[in-house]
């Protein structure tokens, strides 16, 4: 990764008002290709709002550029071929089969009611294999455990084959093994050149698995950089109001909040 490469996503001077309050306030940041970026910050700091604004689901002021192109001028379907979204506690309303859920990720590439193309089927197969779902592919997506369902929804986002994935608290509600499995998937995607922006509450996961962190505080970027640079005692105290235990393990830096300050 060279610092000179054009960013995948460039957010400049972004403001989002919800109910008369500036939830995102003149925020600027950029994401480099092939990185896993952790979006951290306390509740209400604007993490979900930032993700939704990037998806053009909320009206905003300022500019959001994807690979140099302004997202505001992009058609919804074209945007869906650039940016995928993995929602917080994703739902599956109807009991449709696992591979059909994954096929929904191909919607931006399909038109009318035509059957799936070879590229569509290949993308679905690859996503099912990547998320280890081949054995349950014909099961109803409502009849799965929480861990399996999160893998199905992740496979759905993978099948969308976008350069950028936005994930809203993807590890919430998962056991430690599934959390690590998901972060490994993000890292594998980054090695393939994709970019992941994931909002996280778990600072230990953020420290260990993200190449870069964006620390959000009251709608602005308080700090941006590596875990070493962002997760400092002073920043945690100022932004989260907590004191943390810092340690080193064979997997890198360990950050565990231990008390409120």
């Amino acid at each position: 990764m060279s610092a000179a490469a054009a960013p995948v996503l460039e957010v400049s001077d972004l403001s989002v008002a919800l109910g008369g309050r500036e939830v995102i306030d003149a925020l600027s940041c950029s994401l480099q290709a092939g990185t896993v970026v952790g979006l951290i910050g306390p509740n209400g700091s604007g993490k979900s709002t930032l993700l939704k604004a990037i998806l053009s689901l909320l009206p905003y002021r300022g500019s959001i550029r994807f690979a140099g192109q302004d997202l505001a001028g992009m058609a919804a379907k074209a945007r869906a071929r650039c940016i995928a979204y993995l929602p917080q506690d994703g739902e599956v309303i109807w009991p449709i089969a696992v591979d059909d859920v994954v096929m929904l990720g191909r919607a931006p590439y399909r038109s009318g009611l035509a059957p799936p193309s070879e590229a569509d089927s290949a993308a679905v197969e690859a996503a099912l294999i990547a998320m280890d779902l081949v054995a349950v592919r014909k099961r109803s997506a409502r009849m799965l455990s929480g861990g399996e369902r999160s893998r199905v929804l992740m496979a759905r986002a993978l099948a969308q084959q976008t350069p950028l994935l936005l994930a809203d608290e993807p590890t919430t509600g998962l056991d430690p093994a599934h959390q690590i499995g998901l972060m490994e998937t993000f890292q594998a995607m980054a090695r393939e050149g994709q970019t992941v922006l994931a909002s996280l509450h778990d600072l230990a996961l953020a420290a260990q698995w993200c190449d870069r962190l964006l620390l959000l505080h009251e709608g602005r970027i308080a700090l941006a950089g590596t875990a070493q640079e962002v997760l400092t005692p002073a920043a945690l105290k100022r932004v989260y109001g907590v004191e943390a235990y810092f340690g080193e393990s064979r997997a890198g830096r360990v950050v565990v909040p231990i008390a409120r300050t």
Partner: protein
Amino acid sequence: MTERGRFFLLMALLTGLVVVLFVASLLIGPAGLGISASLSALFAADGDVVAIVMQEIRLPRAILGAAIGATLGLSGAAMQGYLRNPLAEPGLLGVSASASLGAVMAIYTGLSSSFPLALPLMALGGALVAVVFVRLLAGESATPISLILAGVAVSSLAGALTSLVLNLSPNPFAALEIVFWMLGSLKDRSMTHVWLSLPFMVVGWIMLAQVARALDALTLGEVTAASLGFKLSRVQALVVLGTAASVGAATAVAGAIGFIGLIVPHVLRPLVGSHPSRLLGASALGGAAVLLAADIAVRVIAPERDLKLGVLTALVGAPFFLWLIFKTRREMI
């Protein structure tokens, strides 16, 4: 067999069923005509009695039965898919209640006796008013919840006004006519009714068919559907306008016929792998089959008593609905 193959087989079977019931509907009536004589009379150019009975009484009845049944099944499937709720039905938007109010006004004012088409026209007008109100109340970027609330508000208002009209009706005969009309029937409908309602229904069908893929995506929730490139405001506009046009026209010529739009999609859902898009076509055919069968049943069960369609569908549908609630409740636990 692949899942796609099974779906096409189901569609072929349903199409066959609709064709059989359509022909059966043509062959049943008080005139007691022979099968070959009546079917050939359909295409006869001369105006003998058999040809008139077939072409001007039974044919419009069968066409309306199929088209209105398809409308109810399709719009029910679209509403359930859009609202992501298996208990949604086409009447939820207040369109049927308002169309009924329009029709009842036509009977009450006596317009319908001096100008027969006033009834379906005023019913269509009622449906139009309802859809304008619902869209205004729910707002442009409406969520399903605000749409449901707006529909409930319009429904109750239309229901209250209908009761008021009944309350004020000048004599018992007018009141009886109003009540009978509201029970729903396909008796004595002419080709004029077909030409008046079918274009609206077809336009509604086309609008509802457009949202098929979006309904599939909505299985994963609204935000995910939007992130997949579907414009939710457009989807809602198509669902509301498509339902209003088709159900408004259906109610205008046949009165309010309940339960088909609720139950047909529900029965067919497991057979199409729960895909909201596939459920649209299957429910249209299923609805056509059920309404044709019900219209045959009212003629066979009590030929002299003029049993009303809406009464029959409610008698069969209500127990089914109870079972549905019971089953849903069990699944929730």
